[in-house]
Structure formats: C-alpha cells, structure tokens
C-alpha cells in the first residue's frame, strides 16, 4: 500500500530478495518494476478482514474456491501483487500453490485504499489485473464507496447505501456495504 523504499528490480531478483531472512517479516509488491512495501492502517485492515470473512462464510455454503488475506501474494501479468483480499476458484487451482506469490492470478482481488497509497500505482495494478482476467473491487474507506472493475465491462460504482454482488465470480454472494465499514461504538 505505501512506499517505503523505491528501487527497481527484475522479477528474478525480486523473487530472491523477498526470501532473504531480513525480509521474512515484511511484505512487498513489485509494480511496474518498482519494489513497494505494503503498509496498511487499522481501518483499511478492518474493512479487508470484514470482506474476507463474508466471502469465507459464503464459500462454506458454496464450495467454489479459496480466499486469501493481506499476505497472500499473486503473480499478475508478470508483476508481484498482494491484494488485501483475494478469491481463487477451485476451477482455476485445485489446491494452494505453496509459493510466496501464487503463479496463478486470483479470480477476484480486493484493494482497500489507504491514505498512503499512491493512486498512480493503483491505476497500473488495476490495468494489470484486468489484463490477467481478474475482477477488482476497489474499496474507499472515507467515501464508503466501492468501484468494480471487470475485464471488458464498464466500471460500476456502488455507494454506501448499496449492495455489492458477487456477479459471475461468486454467484449469489451479496454484501451490504454499510456492514463492512467500521462503526464507532
């Protein structure tokens, strides 16, 4: 999510570098050749886990695939991404890859925007997700909005009073947006 270091690396060098012992506790993405450390905040983290929990509940009823959290990496159109939440169908991959970055891109990626995100990077990520056939939900904590990007289809916008539907990826899945944003007690 946020920039901590700014360094360009080849995919092969990146693969080696993330495995170094000093990096074992950190998470990195490789966006347009640039290494970016993933940093979040508690609000974005809460929203992400709320969405992941709803998807997991749905998947217990509909055995369609697996959900990964904010440390699940994927190789997307040659880049290394870590979406906040992702769903990958059994149809695409029957079991976990066991790799640091799953060589198969997910079917659905959820990106929760945090203030430290650079919007230019998100633009490139969405472009590459679409190229890899991935549906993307971009979630805006401040505006309580979600943008839905599907390959070959117009962008949809769901506002805070709306319901997010799983579409072809998670048929029958529905999420009332108000339920995923943190409330003050």
């Amino acid at each position, binding site marked *: 999510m946020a920039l901590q270091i700014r360094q360009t690396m080849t995919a092969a060098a990146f693969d080696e570098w993330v495995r170094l012992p000093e990096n074992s506790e950190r998470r990195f993405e490789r966006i347009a050749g640039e290494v970016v450390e993933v940093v979040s905040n508690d609000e974005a983290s809460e929203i992400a886990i709320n969405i992941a929990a709803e998807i997991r509940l749905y998947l217990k009823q509909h055995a369609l695939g697996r959900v990964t959290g904010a440390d699940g990496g994927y190789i997307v*159109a040659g880049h290394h991404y870590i979406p906040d939440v992702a769903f990958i169908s059994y149809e695409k991959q029957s079991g976990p890859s066991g790799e640091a970055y799953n060589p198969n891109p997910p079917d659905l990626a959820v990106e929760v925007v945090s203030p430290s995100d650079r919007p230019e990077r*998100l*633009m*490139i990520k*969405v*472009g*590459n997700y679409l*190229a890899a056939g991935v549906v993307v939900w971009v979630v805006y904590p401040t505006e309580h909005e979600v943008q839905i*990007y599907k390959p070959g289809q117009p962008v949809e916008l769901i506002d805070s009073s709306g319901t997010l539907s799983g579409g072809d990826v998670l048929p029958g899945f529905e999420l009332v947006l108000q339920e995923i944003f943190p409330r003050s007690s």
Partner: protein
Amino acid sequence: MLRQRMTVEAFDLWARGQDRDYEYIRGEALEVVSNNYSSQVGILIGGMLAVYVTQNQLGHVTGADGGYQVMGERYITDAAFVSRSKQPQPSREAYNSNPPDLAIEVLSPSDDVDRIRIKIANYLAAGTVVWVLDPDAKVAEVYRPGQSVVVIDENGTLDGGELLPGFQVRVGDVFPPEADV
C-alpha cells in the same frame, strides 16, 4: 471546478449549451481543467500524431476538445486517434459515438487519478489503447486491452505498434524542457 450529478440524456442536452468542456463520468458532469504545461505536452504529442496520421492517411486525430462516447460515458481526451477503418469520415457529433482507437491522457496536478483510472478501465473495455503521459515522473504508461501495462521512462520509445505502424517517439521528447531559472 463544476461537479454535478445528472443522467447521461440530461448531460447530452446540457453540455451543448456550455462554453466550457465537460466529461460525464460515473453519473457526474465534470469540467475539464488542465494547466499550461500539460496542455503543451498534449499539443506536442497530438501534433506529432496528427502529422503522422495525415501523411500516412490512417484516420483522424482530435485534440483536447475532442469528445467521445465510451461505455455509456462521455470523455474528452487530450489527444485521440480514430482509424479510417473504424470511421471513414470524421464525426460531427459533440461526443463521437465511436470510441477512439487510441486515447492520450496527460496528467495534470489537478487531475483526480482515481477518475482517470475509471476512464482507463472503460477505454480498455471499449477496445481503446491508452497512453498516459505523466509530466512529473517523465514517464509514459501504455494500457492495451488484455495486455499487461507497460511503463516507459524518458529514454524509452513510445511505439505506435499495430495501430500506428512505424510511429515512434522518444518519451522524453514529448515533455518540453522546463527553462533553467
């Protein structure tokens, strides 16, 4: 900057009576605002494109007031190319009902990158190639339907590919040098 919610039908009627250029993005009419430097970049690449396309009789090039209908929305790109095979005659519509083959967006500090991302995704869905020129980073980003994003630095070359065979420009050359003060 004006920002107003309306239906696309209302927008089409309303936009005709305006002196300024507006886009229609996700249900909102938005005024197009640039700055001088981004405008220079836009006319430079647009000019190179216009010369090339005219010489090779490949189609039509529009500038920063050329509007297009893209996936039900209304966009105005800084420069765009429509091939002759897609559209033999230039369009006389305020917003061409054919999306362009190539759309060029020059970033300016007032741009909402979020909004540009929506535009790019809709362009891709409509089969349009998009070149994003970033004057701050001095890079070009190339978005093509179904292909991974390519980022080209100022020493690299923007290549017209299948769309504009033989068109090549060094990325640094589309960013006019800023005077040493």
